[in-house]
């Protein structure tokens, strides 16, 4: 008997039911044998089995063997979310010669096992859901997948090291890449760092060549100072709207000679310089930093005299012999068509002022780690000299770990990079100033190639390590040695008593947090976020760069804190995943389109205006509605609205849904 045949639509259902333990993920939260036995008694069920991992090869083979041996023509698998493994099992059906759509999946992991603590309640829910699927699958029909072309162009959002790496990888593979960056220059946080751990090579030396490569790559369209405003469509065919903010300097004309900056009516830099965390100053017309890419100046309308008063003599424009300055530049809207989106939107550093105990913003001697990165950097505001705000060189420095990390009141997670960068900063500070350096840590976390060795090096260098969380930074001196110093109070938990350590400079090793607008961005692209706000990967181990939305990938710290090596690796992985989709050249769509049953359609036209894709039209000859299958995206809105029940949706027919409703409600 050839099972891959429409005859099975009408043949009596022979159902195979499989429930997956998913190790203990499912089996630990509900009574798997009870669900199996419950389903086994349902009419039409020929085989009911439980198995440790249904998605494993043996699991799939078990399914195939049963299809052949027991002449099964319908399969139900109760395991994880269909968004994760539906295709796996459909392929297993196909391999066994059964149409893949004679299949229904029950989500008893994400929707049951992982979210309920009440075992009997979870078991009952699982029974209900399985009973629904078994009833539903009887009404499944023979279907074939639709293939549509996959647009080869890619949009990468965010041009930090992750976005740069991903864009270059894909561009090198010959794909056209749009790279959109919110800031005026690409480079992200990495461009702000001085050295990178554990090798201590200079961040700029390894990043700058990549930045120039992006700028000059023929396959990359770089839009800085731009943001994605809207996305529509789905994998293979996204329409994206990008907003380009005016920089008041024509990008194609500017050569980055800095003449405009030198001739600005402000003779001295006066405004806090973003790139240097406000430790340095800039003018209203400025170059974000010396290696900024594109190497194009921009005007900050907030501070520019022309925009504020309209009474500037515009000496910058005069000074520019390429006439690149354009005060009338307007925001520009670009619409592009791409098949794939890759998000590398990065992170934000924890706002140290939110921790009231460490006196950031109160005591001038308290700095964040990123500020120290700039101070220690040769092109930073002090030309690489580590000095306090009053110009003194610190004789003692305390570095406090886990600021805005591992703390229920701020952020619960470990930010992964702080231990290592604190070690790096300890080394650099000691090297630059010869100061006594104290690291206050809770646990020292150095997992990574050559990381522990770096810790060893620091131990040998004579940096102090105190295992204890600092409770406060205060200027309350209790003894002469403490006068005029900042005092760090912490329990030396290894010694078992509290210590007071007076220092000149305090460095707060601030953690990594999701971007403030991560929720808005997640909604813009319709991807998920984990509870703490980083973007949610499809699977923490098996699909770490995928999202739950096909065709959208994530890389770098927008997914969670990670260091540069991991970020670059992840960016490469995301690019490879994207390339795999693009090179397939088509995407298979669910055959969930709607169709009109011509015989019974009365031609009332109720459905026609409801379709946003104009897939439904009215045949003036037959006086009936018709649905163009290639235009139909399968939402089913017309089906629900058809007043005479004459439109059906594949995979979501009325009978199928009615039987599901009945199934979830018929448990004793």
């Amino acid at each position, binding site marked *: 008997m050839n099972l891959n045949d429409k005859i099975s639509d009408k043949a009596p259902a022979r159902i195979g039911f499989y429930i997956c333990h998913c190790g203990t993920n499912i089996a630990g939260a509900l009574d798997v044998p009870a669900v199996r036995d419950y389903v086994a008694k349902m009419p039409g069920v020929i085989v009911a089995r439980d198995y440790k991992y249904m998605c494993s090869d043996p699991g799939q083979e078990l399914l195939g063997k049963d299809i052949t041996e027991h002449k099964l023509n319908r399969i139900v698998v109760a395991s994880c979310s269909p968004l994760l493994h539906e295709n796996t099992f459909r392929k297993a059906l196909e391999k066994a010669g059964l149409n893949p759509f004679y299949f229904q999946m029950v989500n008893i992991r994400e929707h049951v096992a992982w979210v309920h603590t009440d075992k009997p309640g979870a078991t009952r829910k699982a029974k209900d859901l399985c009973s629904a699927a078994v009833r539903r699958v009887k009404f499944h029909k023979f279907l074939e997948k639709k293939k549509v072309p996959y647009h080869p162009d890619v949009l990468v959002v965010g041009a930090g090291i992750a976005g740069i790496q991903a864009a270059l990888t894909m561009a090198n593979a010959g794909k056209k890449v749009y790279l959109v960056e919110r800031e005026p220059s690409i480079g992200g946080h990495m461009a702000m760092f001085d050295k990178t751990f554990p090798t201590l090579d200079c961040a700029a030396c390894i990043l700058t060549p990549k930045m120039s490569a992006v700028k000059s790559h023929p396959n990359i369209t770089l839009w800085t100072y731009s943001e994605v405003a809207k996305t529509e469509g789905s994998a293979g065919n996204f329409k994206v709207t990008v907003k380009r903010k005016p920089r008041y300097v024509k990008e194609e004309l500017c050569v980055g000679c800095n003449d405009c900056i030198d001739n600005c009516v402000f003779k001295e830099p006066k405004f806090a310089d973003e790139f240097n965390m406000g430790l340095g100053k800039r003018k209203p017309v400025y170059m974000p930093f010396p290696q900024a890419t594109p190497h194009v100046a921009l005007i900050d309308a907030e501070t520019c005299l022309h925009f504020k008063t309209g009474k500037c003599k515009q000496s910058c424009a005069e000074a520019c012999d390429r006439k690149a300055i354009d005060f009338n530049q307007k925001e520009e809207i670009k619409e592009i068509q791409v098949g794939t989106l890759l998000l590398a939107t990065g992170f934000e550093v924890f706002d140290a002022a939110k921790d009231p*105990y460490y006196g950031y913003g109160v005591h001038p001697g308290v700095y964040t780690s990123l500020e120290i990165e700039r101070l220690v950097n040769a092109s930073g505001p002090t030309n690489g000299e580590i000095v306090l705000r009053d110009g003194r060189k610190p004789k003692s420095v305390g570095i406090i770990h*886990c600021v805005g990390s*591992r*703390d*229920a*009141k701020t952020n619960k997670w470990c930010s992964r990079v702080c231990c290592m960068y604190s070690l790096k900063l300890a080394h650099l500070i000691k090297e630059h100033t010869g100061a006594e350096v104290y690291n206050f840590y*809770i*646990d020292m976390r150095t997992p990574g190639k050559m990381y522990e060795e770096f810790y060893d090096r620091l131990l040998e260098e004579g940096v102090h390590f105190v*295992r*204890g*969380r*600092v*409770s*406060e930074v205060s200027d309350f001196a209790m003894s002469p040695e403490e006068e005029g110093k900042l005092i760090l*109070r*912490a*329990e*030396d*938990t290894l010694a*078992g*008593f*509290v210590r007071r350590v007076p220092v000149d400079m305090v460095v707060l090793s601030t953690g990594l947090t999701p971007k403030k607008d991560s929720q808005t961005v997640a909604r813009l692209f319709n991807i998920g976020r984990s509870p703490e706000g980083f973007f949610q990967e499809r699977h923490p181990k098996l699909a770490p760069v995928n999202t739950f939305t096909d065709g959208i990938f994530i890389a770098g710290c927008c997914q969670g804190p990670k260091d540069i090596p991991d970020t670059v690796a992840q960016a490469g992985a995301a690019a490879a995943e994207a390339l795999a989709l693009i090179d397939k050249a088509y995407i298979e769509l669910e055959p969930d389109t709607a169709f009109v049953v011509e015989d019974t359609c009365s031609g009332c036209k109720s459905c026609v205006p409801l379709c946003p894709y104009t897939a439904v039209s009215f045949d003036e000859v037959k006086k009936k509605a018709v649905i163009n299958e290639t235009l139909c995206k399968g939402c089913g809105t017309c089906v629900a609205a058809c007043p005479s029940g004459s439109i059906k949706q594949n995979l979501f027919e009325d009978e199928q849904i009615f039987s599901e409703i009945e199934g979830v409600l018929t448990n004793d």
Partner: protein
Amino acid sequence: MRIEEKVKRESRRDPEFARWVRSVAGGEDIRRCIQCGACSSACQLSSYMDYTPRRIINLAREGFKKEVLGSFTIWLCASCYACRAQCPKEIKITDIMYALKRRAIREGTYPARFPTAVMAKEFANMIFSRGRVTENYLVTMLFLKTNWFKFLGMSRLGLGLLRAGRMSFFPDSVKNRSEIKTILNAVDGK
């Protein structure tokens, strides 16, 4: 200093005590502790303690009952809640300290050095009979019961208070004393 063996064997642990600590109001999160020492550091009195608060938490969750109930720490706690405010795992350390005090009083294991327990009991007695506290009476009772030499040493303060009109000559009381007794007895199931 005596040389003695410091190793602690498993038989010293009292798992029931650890369970009890988790069951008291405020003790539910004790297992979350990562031993960072923020509590000890935040505590103004930790300098005087034999075990820092962090160590008490660890000993309590491991079930080292004798060490915990015999420690100075719980009697030095001034209930200022600094530890709780700073704990990165939001453990209600002050409430745990209260619970440990209650347990120690119940079991009579508090060190004789600290009159805190005596005072607490006197306090309770006074409230049971009058519903309110009159501080100087309380202090007098305390010193008479513990160390009346010290009481004499305090007489300067007493005189000062007397002169400033801050001493009460008659103990204050609620009107409805029986209601207080009914409520407190009801708690005891009487």
